[in-house]
């Protein structure tokens, strides 16, 4: 395609969304449902990538933001009779608020300390859900089916709702990382002390991106609750914090397309291998080892390094 990098980047991102829109008309029922689920989970990975891939902050507590969105939406619908859209909005607001409050003091740490603080707070959030089980139904969780619009049962509605949430977060992420603010984030990732010396308020920048990252994770959590009708504490457990890390690393941290690709690859890798062996996590682990050894930049990171340096 001719044109500047901006036009190519725009075409690439819009092309992906168009391809996802078109896919629903050709996919069979199984992959149609899978893709709806992958788009919701990819939204989570896109949010995570803003923090890890572009700012260099590794979190092991992001499940609390996903769960904040899920429970914000789920509890408001279950107890207060909210509709799907107000519930979704409240879920995102809960995740944004939690990320802002958490970031305000957690970002006083960095590196391994930040990693540990995120993990501790993530676990504390998970145990809080279990502790208030009379309200949250603890690990068992609760179902929203009979409180949601009947239209949400329709696979096409699920698919396009998932696409809408994903597209909004994906395009926002692409816009953000190509903006001057995104350049500051990359500067922080590469050398925060130097960025500070240049006069940037790195603390505020990190707080903003953590809040946005948490908000996108919360949007994914709220969408999951609405589209799959279930809210449960397992989504706040540490494993759900590790997943977006793996998806992002697999697809390519610091690339906008990487988390999407990584989520899809990992989903189908688990889906395929679990039908073949009960040791599917062994196979998944082996695949990740190969990736780390031979493609440390992830799939899209390698593509960018070798073939298309213009990819953001």
């Amino acid at each position, binding site marked *: 395609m001719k044109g500047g990098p901006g036009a190519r980047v725009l075409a690439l991102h819009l092309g992906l969304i168009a391809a996802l829109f078109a896919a629903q008309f050709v996919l*069979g*029922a*199984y992959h*149609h*449902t*899978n893709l709806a*689920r992958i788009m919701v989970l990819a939204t989570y990975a896109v949010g995570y990538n803003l923090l890890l891939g572009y700012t260099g902050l590794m979190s092991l507590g992001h499940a609390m933001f996903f769960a904040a969105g899920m429970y914000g939406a789920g509890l408001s619908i279950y107890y207060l009779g909210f509709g799907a859209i107000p519930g979704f909005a409240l879920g995102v607001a809960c995740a944004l608020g939690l990320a802002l409050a958490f970031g305000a003091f957690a970002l006083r740490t960095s590196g391994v300390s930040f990693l540990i603080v995120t993990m501790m707070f993530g676990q504390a959030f998970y*145990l809080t859900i*279990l*502790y208030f*089980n009379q309200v949250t*139904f*603890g*690990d*068992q*969780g*609760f*179902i*929203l*089916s009979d409180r949601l619009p009947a239209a949400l*049962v329709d696979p096409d509605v699920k698919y396009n709702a998932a696409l809408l949430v994903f597209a909004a977060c994906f395009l926002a992420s692409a816009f953000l990382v190509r903006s001057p603010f995104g350049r500051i984030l990359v500067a922080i990732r590469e050398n925060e002390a130097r960025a500070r010396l240049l006069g940037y308020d790195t603390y505020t920048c990190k707080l903003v991106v953590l809040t946005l990252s948490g908000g996108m994770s919360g949007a994914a959590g709220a969408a999951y609750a609405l589209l*799959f*009708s*279930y809210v*449960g*504490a*397992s*989504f706040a457990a540490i494993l759900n914090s590790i997943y977006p890390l793996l998806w992002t690393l697999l697809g390519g941290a610091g690339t906008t397309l990487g988390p999407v690709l990584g989520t899809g690859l990992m989903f189908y890798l*688990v*889906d395929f291998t*679990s*039908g*073949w*062996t*009960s*040791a*599917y*996590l*062994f*196979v998944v682990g082996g695949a990740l080892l190969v990736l780390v050894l031979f493609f440390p930049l992830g799939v899209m990171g390698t593509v960018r390094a070798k073939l298309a340096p213009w990819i953001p």
Partner: protein
Amino acid sequence: MSADTQRTHAIRTGSSPVTRRALLKAGAGAAAAGAASLALAPLSRIAWAAGSDEPIRIGFQVHRTGIGATYGRWYERTANAAATYLNENGGIAGRPVELVPEDDGTDPKRGAEVVEKFATAHGVDFVYGPLFSHVVIGSAPRAGELKMPYFVVSEGYHVASGSLNRYVFQPGITDVRAQVQAMAPWVAGNLGRRVTMMFPDYAFGYDHRDYFSAAVEAQGGSIAAKIAIPPTESSFTKYFPQVPADTEVLYHVMVGPGVLTFVKEMGEHYGSNRPQIFGFIDSLEGVDIASPGLSFLEGTYLWEALPRYADGLDSDANRHYRERVGINDEGASVDDPKDVSTNSHMFGCWETLFVIKRAVEESGYRSRNPDDVAALIEALEGFDSFDEGIPHPQGYKEFNGALHQCYGRQFISEVREGRLAVVHTTSIEDGKYEAEADYTTQSL
């Protein structure tokens, strides 16, 4: 190995197509095994030739990995044994039964995905098999949306509570509310009326906390304390001093790897001067009662849904069931005496498959079209009891079609010389409670 051959192999051997150990031994051995299986495939087909129609395909949602793996291993063996028995005896409505297993990782997210996969990729007729409550609750909405008959062997009260949907049934095992309620008269009458409860601080524990405490109070007893123990706890010494001194019965339902530590520390705390102790076998499913760390349980009592030791229920049906599943008189695998079964739960997989058979045959179900599915569900809702016999070795059961839930007798056993000896059998009446739901009012 083709997918069909894999499934046939799984049914015949009662194992997953490839286990972890098998994977690690891959290489020349795997190649040889694959060649042998391919060679045997035509022989396997002969078994299916008894039926003259397409097989009834049943998705088996199994906890092969994750926290439920011990249960899952035995659930799969039991389901495979039941399917093999059915196929040797005419199948279902003259059609062979084919189990299509998928691992849900004991995870509600994966559970929902597996239900979708069964419905849209495998094209099965029904799904059955999950145990853990959170997996059932996470998967059930998708089963309902996909109008997939979903048979759970979960023991949880979530089916009878009305919180799921019209497509979900639990016809093979009594729910925990009825179980704990049935225990209360015997506990209050024989062990004591002042009870302290120690339970895990999550859903499984809450059912005990809520329903056993109410049942004890209905018997004129009282609860001295309810001590919830966080699931992350690995030592329990700080909880035993919280047990009030006037406690006559200590009721425990701890589960998971910490149970051996729990019992050991309970013994260290009480020594020989202990209250009566009553627990649920859930704590010790898959664990040898004669394990050194469990010696303190001597003289205490446990609930069982189906006695682990063969002499606990001496009936032809039970002997037949144990022989077909492959468990010895001590309740362990006939192939490995150290591999102790989960006998108080897994019989539900056996019995559920026979309920499916009866529902298919009485409803005239042929394929998963809306009319046949509706007829099947209405047939199930019309059932009121299941007689004791080969299809129901655990015993006679009443079935409440409005609640989609069955109710059977329960057993209380004493730990004697490192074994379990049945001392009491409850009646179905002991566990009855007021119904809170009616699924038949929901549209199909």
